[in-house]
């Protein structure tokens, strides 16, 4: 069975924010709203042994998404290919999923025409056409990878096989996005 994930090689990420910009363009994300953001971790350590890396964050498309479990209407759902989406026609805007997300990557769009929850869709409209998510397609450092985690020949599986991999803090949700980081020490557990 296909289990689509995004894997990010943090050693290759140059912190250019292209992924955040192209995400806004592709998904028509409004001012002040983000599906995807690039954070700076560090600098940490003592001179001259300083460390710093960039951490792109978005919906983790968790294996066991609490946002889906708590959604009273079934608007938040997980597709068979692993993508977590929100069906806006069912969303009542109760924001329960926002509370249930451990990473603060969902937001309530209070716009009177919307009144629903917004988040990264892994560009489901593109992957359904056989394309890659916009953030992956346009990453200049090719740090962002997309593919089936259960296929050993996929880009994501190859990166996972060759690098030290990390995930965001797991409170039982089992985040799907996998970060590769060899050059610096992972600070995500602190």
């Amino acid at each position, binding site marked *: 069975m296909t289990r689509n994930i995004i894997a990010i090689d943090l050693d290759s990420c140059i912190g250019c924010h292209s992924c955040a910009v192209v995400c806004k363009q592709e998904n028509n994300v409004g001012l002040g709203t*983000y599906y995807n*953001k690039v*954070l700076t971790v560090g600098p940490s350590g003592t001179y001259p042994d300083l460390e710093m890396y960039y951490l792109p*964050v*978005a919906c983790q498309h968790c294996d066991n998404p*609490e946002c889906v*479990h*708590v*959604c*009273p*209407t*079934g*608007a938040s759902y997980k597709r068979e290919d692993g993508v977590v989406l929100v069906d806006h*026609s*069912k*969303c*009542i*805007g*109760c*924001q*329960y999923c*926002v*509370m*249930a*997300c*451990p*990473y*603060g*990557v*969902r*937001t*309530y*769009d*209070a716009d009177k025409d*919307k*009144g*629903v929850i917004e988040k990264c869709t892994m560009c489901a409209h593109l992957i359904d056409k056989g394309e890659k998510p916009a953030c992956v397609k346009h990453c200049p450092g090719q740090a962002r990878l997309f593919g089936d985690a259960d296929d050993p020949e996929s880009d994501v599986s190859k990166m996972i096989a060759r690098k030290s991999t990390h995930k*965001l*803090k797991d*409170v*039982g*949700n089992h985040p799907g996005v996998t970060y590769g980081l060899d050059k610096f020490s992972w600070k995500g557990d602190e």
Partner: protein
Amino acid sequence: MEIQWPLLIFSVLLGVTSGCFVFLGVGELRGKFKDVRFMSALIAFVCLAVGGCVSVLHMGHPERATHLLGNLGSGLSKELFTVAIMGIVSLVYLILAKKEYPGASKVFGVLGAVLGLVLPVVAGASYLIAARPAWDSAALPLMFLGGGLAMGMTLMAGLVLLRGKASEEGGFALKLALAGVVIMVVTSLAYVIWIAMAPYQAPSRSIERLVSGDLAVMFWLGVVLVGLVAPTALAALACVKATKGEGGTGTVKPSTLAGYMFAACACSVIGAVVLRVIMYGVGTSVEQFIYR
């Protein structure tokens, strides 16, 4: 997280309903409070109805409420169904309170009391989310229950002293109110202890914020002094004054004792509101990468 006022008001009013019905249910079992049960049930029903209406303001699309059947396992769905059942039971009890059907009144009174114990727990359980460590404990729904018992029972005791058979039933009503207040104190403190020991500690949800940080004034003044100490003192004082004097008939008029109870109720409401404000304040997610 930001204070969700509609949900906060809903949980406080729902607590009042809960406390009222537990009080009435105990009264039904003991054959007491018949003179005030209609007004009491009316207050409980109105609180539930107003709270339910206010909670709808939290939603972006309440007109899509039919989709609420989409995931019956969700905490919010369970809360909705419990509120609906409570609404039906309280309405039936309200009608029965106007008539003379002792058996039926007792059944629905006790049913209302059981639901009164369940309702705040179900509402509080909606907040048991691993992503918000300061909420993820049974102490939170119990805090909702304790606050509800204090608010509802002090209100009902005041009503009995003012409109009921104060000389015969006032003492028992005051004891119930005191019990509700004591449960509130214990459960509120248990929740504060949970905040101190919750996993994934971070400055945004630390106990230091309550003890000496930006939430300290709200905590010490609003929760401890007004919300816990004042109702306890008022309820205890009322109990003492009601049993002193010649022949244990009390040293003050029932209406004065009713004033003590209403003041204790008001203080409990303030404490419940402030504690929930703090609850939202420390209810930050494990990580807050994009939104807070």
